């Protein structure tokens, strides 16, 4: 899908060697896949692979000599029966021919501000620290072998507005302040010619036709792909790199001290505590931004903080502490905002194969239905990135309306696909509740919800009916969508007992939603999983007596390290849980330009 090479092998000195065009074209088609002539690299401006020179350069598809990366002018026989003619001797004599092949360019958008001058680097001329330019070398080994008077024409497809090429500090192709430049012809100056490609936006692409001209006549042509990395969001199988939580200390009964301490003891300096007072006591850090990456084949990585239009207290946090060289905050969407625009309502599955199509980065999903949902510009952008083809789930029945209220993914080495989908389920919760002694006291629920005992919950006929309808009308259908869109079957899904309270704005978890968890799977550590303590017990201090905790442990993959943390006062009663209050940056795993 991504990697595309058009191997038109045409002998450089075809005219001199009296070869036939149709013969050379065939040779190209058969050998091009394995014979890449040049490489573009921001970190390695020199060609790493030399020209491949047909030994005979004549009529067949055999007898090519491939130059090694370390010795670009060495010729070796790679073919079998070599046809010779009166101008060559097969392996030793005669002028070499060249495979007119160049490497595709897989770069990344130049949207950060490496020189910290307050402008995105696209608006600057290239400078030393600007590491987002993909440098492509037209090797002198090829150019210098061209007959005198030869030229190379570079022609750009499309509008040319979203990318551009620099040679020696000048834009020669693509977007400028004026009309885009779509064609540039150069006369070989002697030695390499380096084009520095720059992309304006994520996942923009174009084709570059590189044509060799001899006295104005087209001799040879190659089409290379130029593409900026799509912006790729993270899934829970990627190793965590850094985690964030807003530290809250509003007094004895309104703080997340124990939760943060539990995380800190495991994560150490991999957990960043954000002072609540700096951000208007906004604790919902999951909702404010979403980490993503754009990577280039030269190893470069742009870290993108997708900054929600939510714009509550934490709005300035990305700019304050996350943005810098190779780190940029970008926003898609405008106009009226609502809870669906928060990024608890945006997530990605692990890699899946669906109807024969492999999604190496998983698929994005978010809440949207019936004209409501995540801002359409954000959705359009995510769709435009193609590689994680998004799908929608109906979250409009929830008060908050986020996908993390009923679903998440956890790694599971023993699972057929390497992961499990945790999915909210009402009947399994009532099965637990109905089996418990009705007189079990529930001190945590009494004050905030008016349920002093298990029996008061199970005896609430209105709530039971409400939950039965949620299961039938929403959860069953959403689970079916997950299965269809991700190619899952029942074995891939773990049902998580869940019960919803009915508020005027919609449903919200009554028992803290254990599916709404934080997955901190750092490299070199076991997958630490922080789960809201359900507190469905008489003794709040005794987790071992909690039937929901016992049930959750029994359902989970055994290699997860579970930590049940108190998120009741700060998060749960304000309609969120642990996941909503944390954020995680993750390491990319796969190379998008290598995946089909």
């Amino acid at each position, binding site marked *: 899908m991504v990697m595309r090479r058009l191997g038109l092998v045409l002998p450089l000195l075809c005219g001199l060697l009296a070869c036939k065009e149709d013969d050379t074209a065939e040779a190209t088609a058969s050998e091009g896949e394995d014979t890449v002539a040049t490489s573009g690299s921001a970190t390695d401006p020199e060609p790493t692979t030399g020209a491949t020179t047909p030994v005979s350069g004549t009529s067949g598809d055999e007898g090519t000599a491939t130059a090694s990366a370390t010795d670009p002018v060495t010729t070796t026989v790679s073919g079998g029966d070599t046809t010779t003619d009166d101008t060559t001797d097969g392996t030793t004599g005669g002028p070499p021919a060249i495979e007119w092949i160049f490497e595709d360019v897989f770069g990344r958008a130049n949207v950060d501000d490496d020189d910290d001058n307050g402008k995105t680097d696209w608006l600057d001329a290239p400078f030393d620290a600007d590491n987002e330019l993909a440098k492509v070398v037209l090797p002198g080994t090829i150019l210098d072998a061209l007959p005198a008077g030869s030229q190379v024409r570079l022609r750009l497809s499309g509008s040319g507005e979203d990318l551009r090429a620099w040679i020696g500090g000048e834009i020669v192709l693509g977007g400028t302040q004026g009309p885009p430049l779509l064609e540039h012809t150069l006369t070989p100056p002697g030695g390499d010619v380096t084009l520095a490609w720059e992309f304006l936006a994520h996942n923009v692409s174009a084709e570059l036709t590189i044509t060799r001209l001899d006295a104005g006549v087209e001799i040879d042509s190659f089409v290379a792909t130029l593409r900026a990395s799509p912006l790729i969001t993270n899934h829970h199988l990627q190793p965590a790199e850094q985690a964030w939580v807003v530290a809250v200390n*509003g*007094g*004895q*009964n*309104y703080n997340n001290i124990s939760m943060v301490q539990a995380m800190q003891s495991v994560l150490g300096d991999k957990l960043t505590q954000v002072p609540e007072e700096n951000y208007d*006591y*906004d604790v*919902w850090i999951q*909702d404010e931004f979403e980490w993503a990456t754009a990577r280039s084949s030269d190893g470069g990585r742009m870290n993108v903080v997708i900054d929600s239009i939510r714009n*509550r*207290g934490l709005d300035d946090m990305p700019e304050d502490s996350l943005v810098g060289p190779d780190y940029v905050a970008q926003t898609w969407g405008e106009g009226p905002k*609502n*809870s669906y625009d*928060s990024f*608890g309502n945006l997530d990605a599955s692990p890699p899946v194969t669906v109807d024969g199509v492999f999604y190496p980065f998983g698929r994005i999903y978010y809440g949207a239905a019936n004209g409501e949902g995540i801002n359409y510009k954000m959705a359009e952008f995510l769709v435009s990135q193609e590689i994680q083809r998004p799908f929608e789930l109906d979250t409009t029945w929830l*008060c*908050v*309306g*986020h996908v993390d209220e009923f679903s998440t993914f956890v790694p599971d080495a023993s699972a057929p696909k390497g992961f499990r989908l945790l999915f909210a389920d009402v009947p399994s919760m009532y099965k637990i509740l109905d089996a418990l002694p009705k007189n079990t006291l529930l001190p945590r629920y009494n*004050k*905030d919800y*008016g349920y002093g005992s298990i029996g008061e919950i199970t*005896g*609430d*006929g*209105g*709530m*039971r*009916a*409400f939950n039965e*309808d949620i299961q*039938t*009308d929403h959860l069953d259908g959403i689970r079916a969508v997950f299965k269809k869109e991700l190619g899952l079957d029942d074995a891939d899904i773990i049902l998580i007992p869940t019960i919803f309270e*009915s*508020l*005027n*704005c919609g449903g919200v978890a009554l028992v803290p939603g254990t599916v709404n968890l934080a997955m901190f799977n750092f490299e070199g550590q076991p997958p630490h999983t922080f789960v809201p303590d359900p507190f469905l017990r008489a003794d709040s201090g005794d987790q071992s007596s909690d039937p929901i905790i016992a049930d959750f442990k029994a359902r989970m993959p055994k290699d997860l390290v579970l930590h049940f943390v108190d998120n009741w*006062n700060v*998060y749960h*009663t*304000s*309609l*969120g849980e642990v996941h*909503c209050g944390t954020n995680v940056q993750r390491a990319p795993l796969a190379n998008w330009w290598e995946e089909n």
Partner: protein
Amino acid sequence: MTNRNHSTPLALVVFLLGIGCAVEPGDEPEAAGSRVPADLADPAGEPPLAEWQDWLAVEVTRAERERPAQVAELRAATPVATRAGHPRFTTAALESPGTAALLLDRLSRGTDPAPVRAALAEALPRADGAYGAALVGMMAKESDPEVRVAMVGSLRRAAAEPALAGLRTALADTDPRVRAAAAEVAARRPDGAALTDPLLARLADDSAEVVLAATRSLGALGVEAAFPALQGRLKDMSPGTAELRLHSLRALVRIDAARAAGLPELTALRDDPDPRIVEAAARAMAR
């Protein structure tokens, strides 16, 4: 108490009368004790419905005299934003004794914007002290329907006498959102069956939202008397009635699954254009 005491000015204004009357003539709260099962009545320190203003004045005066700091703090308290963005007073802010009366006092002043008034109403069940009678009294004067909806929500946990009286009033509110909320809350109370008659009346409401809420609640409460009316809804194939057919069927099953399984209307519902109804009919017949 959380440290959310930002710069909310304390406007010392007297109780605002006549903010707006949301109750139609003749819908005033019923007299104390009427239709309330004796075993469900729980005074919980509640004053008689008609005396809530005097009661509140006494409570507030006492708090101002005995706990002036608490009074000032609560009057200036700022709610936090829930994940959905709605203002909410944290439970930690409500832990001092007698906070319900102080919330009511602030609510009665009417100086907070509507979302904060709704948050004040929502916080009442989590606060210490009685609140039902005063809340019902204020509900009749509250002009904003969203605030009245929040008030109705808090009646789920109020003492029986004011709660049932308030819900009867709310079921006759001018705004359908309030009527629907009241219908839903009725099914959340253990004494909700005491509201059978007004709930049945709401089956003829001109708001589909209210009819649906009443239908669901009558089903959840298992009100046998609703069976004929709900059965009649199953035959209504007029445009836009699928939701009503679906919830009527569900309510019938909840009231009496065996009786519902034998309804002749189920046969036709197996061919209903709405697949949810087809599935619900199949389930009902399989019971």
